């Protein structure tokens, strides 16, 4: 579906913009989360087929000609994986930030010059 595709790409670009411009470490993580969500929406919208329903066989979907009635199950499965990985990565990033704040008492990325080149 083109509208959700555009929405996903817009979210991805907003997320990247936030990651590039924000100084606050927490806000950078928020930007990462927004970009992550945008990627998920893009993948799901690529698997959508107009007028078809979720790939779960029950009263609404006939088991005999299910192939004609369901959307692509693979993008949904991939996004399920990606959501969990995104959650785990966000948790690790936030605990890094907690540890950094304990050490330098600052959340601004300008105070961390060690990896700058």
């Amino acid at each position, binding site marked *: *579906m*083109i509208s959700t*595709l*555009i929405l996903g*790409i817009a979210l*991805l*670009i907003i997320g*990247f*913009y936030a990651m*590039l*411009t924000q100084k606050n470490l927490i806000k950078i993580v928020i930007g990462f989360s927004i970009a992550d969500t945008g990627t998920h929406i893009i993948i799901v919208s690529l698997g959508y*087929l*107009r007028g078809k329903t*979720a*790939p*779960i*066989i*029950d009263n609404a979907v006939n*088991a005999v000609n*299910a*192939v*004609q009635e*369901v959307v*692509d*199950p*693979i993008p*949904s*499965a991939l996004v*399920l*994986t990606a*959501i*969990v*990985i995104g*959650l*785990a*990565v966000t*948790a*690790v990033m*936030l*605990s*890094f930030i*907690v*540890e950094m704040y304990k050490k330098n008492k600052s959340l601004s990325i300008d105070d961390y010059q060690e990896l700058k080149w």
Partner: protein
Amino acid sequence: MIKKVVVLLSIIGLIAIFMPMITQFQERENLNELATDYVNGSIHELGTPNVVTSVIVTYRGLDTLGEVTVLFLATVGVGFLLKGKSEDKIEISASELLETTSSVLVAMIMVLGIYIFTHGHLTPGGGFQGGVVIASGFLLMLLSNVNAKMNHSIMHFVESLSGFAYVGIGVTGLVLTVGFLSPKILPLGNFGDLFSAGAIPVIYSLVGLKVGSELTSILVTMGGEK
């Protein structure tokens, strides 16, 4: 100034990368070959009504094992980074509203989580979703009772046991049937029953327990308790 230009250029570059995706977008009419195979195989070979579950647990089972490993690594990483008691822990007791609500709701949330992961092969949902629901129940418990003590050894025991049993089922499938993580080590049963689809509900329940205990230990560590 130079930084602003670089940011602007990279955003324009990103837009240029994604532009062809929008302009040349063609709506698909039918499932491709792989998806057709998965839908047919899920119904006729595995007896699983939820096709997404059969893709995750069986056809892409190795991916899911890797994903559970990544989640485990994240838990270990968070525990490693945030170990030790935080010195300036704020001791504010929760409001009466939150305490009363949580004492009613926590048990229901846990039951809902268990329902979601045991019915992962029949309805929308599954191990990951159910595990997250269970962890949210524990979060409510932690919020309402600041000094709650979690028994870490039980949590680690559940986590390691379910991970071990997951790999064990996979190896059993390798020995008894066609391949690693094959669900056909158990009888397929009637299409649409709770005890059907071979080992898929067993595997997904183990994933649910593992995800639930891992996310709970992430929450406990982030809450500042040792």
